């Protein structure tokens, strides 16, 4: 009986790993595309543009291979991310140094301003953390490969005795959960949209004032984080509501996702408070 919660948590970890992996891949992709588009109009060089396009294509290809659990792709991705991080650090080092105007190296590395360097650094550092540190994403890759431990964990979820325990919800309880489910979807879309808008305004304002722009970018990222946190319990709740008969496994999957969702509020809320205070003193 004690196996069930552990197995549910394993399943939850794999699910969260998939989401984190997708967010980190698309984070890198969006950052590369954004820097390339901005630099084509702002500080065009063939080398910088080519590097941006190649980086975007390579991350898409590697992301695709990683998603199906390709082990050599994991090694290749680690090497590629390390290389990109070195290039970003070189460009940032020059841009933040004493004489950034005298060097054209950052532009050739597809980084024409410090904010681009910081964005790329954040995106690649996040992706590197996912690829190198043991955790959700590596568990997801293991499950995709069908490794023994991950496979056993998934199988345990499917066969655990507790999973068959029925849950009978009264009409008012079902209606309350259905209403919550409907609200969750709308809220996540709106919050993500507002966060994205804030992010874009931050990027636009960074030309006028780096500090103001950066604060907007941090605020936008925090709001996007809140939107992503709202999404987490949607799928398990939907599964619980549509299942017949409902089981404790489904109820616990929803509750575990809700716990993860609430925990994911902490960092964005701290960041938002910091942004409000910093704005007062700029």
């Amino acid at each position, binding site marked *: *009986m*004690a196996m*069930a*919660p*552990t197995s549910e948590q394993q399943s939850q970890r794999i699910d969260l790993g998939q989401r984190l992996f997708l967010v980190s891949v698309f984070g890198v992709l969006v950052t590369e595309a954004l820097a390339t588009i901005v630099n084509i109009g702002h500080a065009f060089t063939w080398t910088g543009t080519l590097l941006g396009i190649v980086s975007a294509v390579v991350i898409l290809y590697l992301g695709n291979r990683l998603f199906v659990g390709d082990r050599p792709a994991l090694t290749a991705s680690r090497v590629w991310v390390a290389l990109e991080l070195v290039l970003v650090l070189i460009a940032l080092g020059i841009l933040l140094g004493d004489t950034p105007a005298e060097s054209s190296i950052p532009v050739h590395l597809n980084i024409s301003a410090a904010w681009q360097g910081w964005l790329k650094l954040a995106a690649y550092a996040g992706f590197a953390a996912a690829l190198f540190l043991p955790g959700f994403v590596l568990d997801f890759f293991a499950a995709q490969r069908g490794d023994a431990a991950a496979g056993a964990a998934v199988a345990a979820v499917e066969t655990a005795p*507790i999973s068959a*325990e029925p*849950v*009978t*919800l*009264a009409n*008012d*309880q079902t209606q*309350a*959960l259905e*209403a*919550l489910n409907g*609200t*969750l979807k*709308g*809220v996540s879309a*709106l*919050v993500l949209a*507002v966060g994205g*808008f*804030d992010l874009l*305004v931050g990027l*636009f*304002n960074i030309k006028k004032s780096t500090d103001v722009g950066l604060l*907007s970018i941090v605020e936008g990222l925090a*709001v996007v984080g*809140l939107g992503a946190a*709202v999404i987490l319990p949607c799928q398990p709740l939907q599964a619980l509501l549509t299942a017949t008969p409902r089981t*404790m496994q489904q*109820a*616990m999957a929803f*509750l*575990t996702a*809700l*716990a993860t969702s*609430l*925990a994911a*509020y*902490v960092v964005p*809320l*701290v960041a*938002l*408070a910091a942004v*409000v*205070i910093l*704005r*007062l003193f*700029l």
Partner: protein
Amino acid sequence: MSTGAAPKQTLPLTSDQKQVVAKIASTALLVTGLLLVLGLVQIVAGPLGWWWGKVSVFAALLTLVQGLLTAFLGLAMLAVSSDFRYLGEYPQYSGNHLRNAARNLKVFYQVQIGVAVVLALIIVLRLAA
């Protein structure tokens, strides 16, 4: 003869599963604290920003409204935290507590829509400035 409401169908929680429910309650309490702090910071920062000449009256008012809504979010999350605490402590009424938690969470997310709309207005003002 009992005069109270009869217990509805319950969630058969094991002791391990009760720990998950307790974790939700404690995390919700932490989020409550953070939301109340953030709301308070916004309530103070709005008028202060206007007083110091950093923002317009309208932006200051919107920040104040955002702070009030955020503080209300904190109160809604406090109710959610209590619901999950009771859900773990009184399993015979767990169905009712789950229903109450779902209703309070719905209120929480609905108010979050308001906060998002106010934030969008503030961003538009910032863009126009």
